[in-house]
């Protein structure tokens, strides 16, 4: 006697195949849902903002009058902020990655530092804001200037830069450093002349992606206390400043009072998204163009 009744199996098979088809449609719909939301979001922002986006808006000063308002101050503020964030995170991030990957001996200390870094990567950005407020703005008495904001943002993206730099360094094959050591090169000579140049594209890609995260971050700066007031363009790292996301935040909040502010916010979002797009393209370009195949 047969255990399987083939007619019953094939009768059930139709139902099983139908379930499979149905599920597949559901899975496709889910995937499309995310993509459609992305499309709606971008379409919404563009239809609202594009009409307000012109040269006067880009180069103008902040104003409470929607027709005269411009975002040059916020663009400059973002640029000044990056002037702090980029070098500080690069030095700290790459330095830490070199230490962990090439100098630290495996053991308790190394795994403690590594765990600490991965935990820091999961800390909400607003927590960094409070740290910056307490340490830089208040304890060091800097006030809410570019330097304080930049250092706060640098600490926020530091774990990302460290981890991506570590990956880039780890990707440099052992036989390259062996060849260098084999010629009598010292450790630092090998690091400086062989390992760092070979891992540079990877390090840069990670750093640019981390920077674009910092450019879009709002909450740490809200907490530090970036004023909603009209302030002059920043011209040094000791000036007060505002950035694009902050401007979006204030205009969105106030759009219930002045309807046009929503359009200004949308126009600013377009500018912000374009900057992020450029940075991400640069990162992808570097990754594809300079990544060595060893």
């Amino acid at each position, binding site marked *: 006697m047969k255990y399987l009744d083939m007619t019953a199996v094939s009768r059930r098979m139709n139902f*099983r*195949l139908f379930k*499979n088809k149905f599920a*597949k449609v*559901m*899975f*496709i719909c*889910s*995937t499309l*849902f995310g*993509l459609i*939301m*992305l499309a*709606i*979001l971008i379409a919404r922002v563009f239809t609202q903002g594009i009409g307000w986006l012109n040269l006067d808006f880009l180069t103008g000063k902040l104003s409470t009058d929607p027709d005269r308002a411009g975002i040059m101050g916020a663009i400059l503020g973002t640029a000044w902020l990056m002037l702090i964030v980029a070098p500080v995170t690069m030095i*700290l991030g790459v*330095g*830490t990655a070199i*230490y962990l990957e090439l*100098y*630290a001996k495996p053991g308790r200390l190394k795994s403690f530092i590594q765990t*600490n870094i991965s*935990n*820091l990567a*999961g*800390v*909400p*950005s*607003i*927590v960094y*804001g*409070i*740290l910056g*407020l*307490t*340490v830089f703005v*208040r304890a060091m008495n800097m006030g809410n200037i570019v330097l304080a904001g930049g250092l706060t943002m640098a600490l926020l993206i*530091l774990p990302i830069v*460290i981890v991506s730099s570590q990956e880039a360094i780890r990707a440099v094959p052992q036989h390259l450093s062996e060849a260098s050591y084999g010629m009598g090169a*010292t450790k*630092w*000579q090998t690091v400086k002349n062989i390992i760092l140049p070979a891992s540079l594209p990877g390090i840069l890609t990670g750093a640019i992606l981390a920077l*674009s995260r910092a450019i*879009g*971050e*709002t*909450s740490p700066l*809200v*907490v530090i*206390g970036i004023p909603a007031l009209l302030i002059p363009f920043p011209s040094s790292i000791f000036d007060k400043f505002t950035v694009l*996301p902050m401007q979006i935040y204030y205009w*969105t909040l106030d*759009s*219930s009072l002045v309807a046009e502010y929503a359009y200004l916010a*949308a126009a600013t*979002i377009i500018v*912000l*998204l374009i900057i*992020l797009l450029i940075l*991400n393209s640069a990162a992808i370009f570097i990754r594809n163009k300079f990544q060595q195949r060893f």
Partner: protein
Amino acid sequence: MNTSMDHNIKDLIRKNKESQKLPKITEKFMPILLLIITSVSILTTIGIIFTFLSETIEFFKRVSVVEFFTSTTLKPLSQDPEYGVLPLIAGTAISSVIAMLVAVPIGLMTAIYLSEYASERVRKIAKPLLEILAGIPTIVYGFFAFTFITPILREIIPNLEPTNILSPGLVMGVMIIPMVASLSEDAMSSVPNALREGALALGSTKLEVTRRVVIPAALSGIIASFVLGLSRAIGETMIVTIASGSSKNFTLDVTQSMQTMTAYIVEVTSGDAPAGSTIYYSLYAVAMTLFIFTLLMNMLAKYISRRFREDY
């Protein structure tokens, strides 16, 4: 061939070795410098814990721990202030639950589609697009929730308030979809093909293979992605700050405005609370609670994915 140089190189190298003191100093100095740089990330953690702890202790000298964790009223600005954190925890919990109700099913199904059903070509297009979704700044989602989703929802639910917890919760869910999808997809793609082929060869449909073989094998990674998504929702600030307002309601009614822990922190710091006031210290007590919550979530996610990892 020039052989006159034969001993030149050796001699040159030897001479250089004797005259160069700099490399030796660099060699000694660099590890120390790098260790100092590395200590910054540890100092950051110490800084967070130390400042939060000391200010929180100060807060609990003024407000009792019991009141903080059991009172359902938060009225820091009233004449007779009350400091109960429960409304904030409720706001955080409800917005996070709404977000996860969106992100978990859709993220998981997206992951299943990309890992099990989609062709290589579709995957190559869809994954970067989802990464864009993940790369959009949260402030943009806040704008989207407040000026687009809320008005639409108010057409459907007439008694929805202009600021409410529902709309930011939903949008936060959309924001977290890519995170859940990509982490779950990673877990599913690392299930070896041999397992799939074994089940397919017995006449299983793709759906059955996914449900009975792939998901169980990738479960730890999938659950870890949910926990990380939840942690992200708990710590999310701008969407809820913009779209949910600042009413400290202790309720389950999602049509109302509620405040999350993060939004409270923004409100207090934007209000320029004078240092030394109780409301200033309450900031740290709330931040400490938030910090511990998210830290525990992240550690839980790591524990799950490490502890229950399948070895193939």
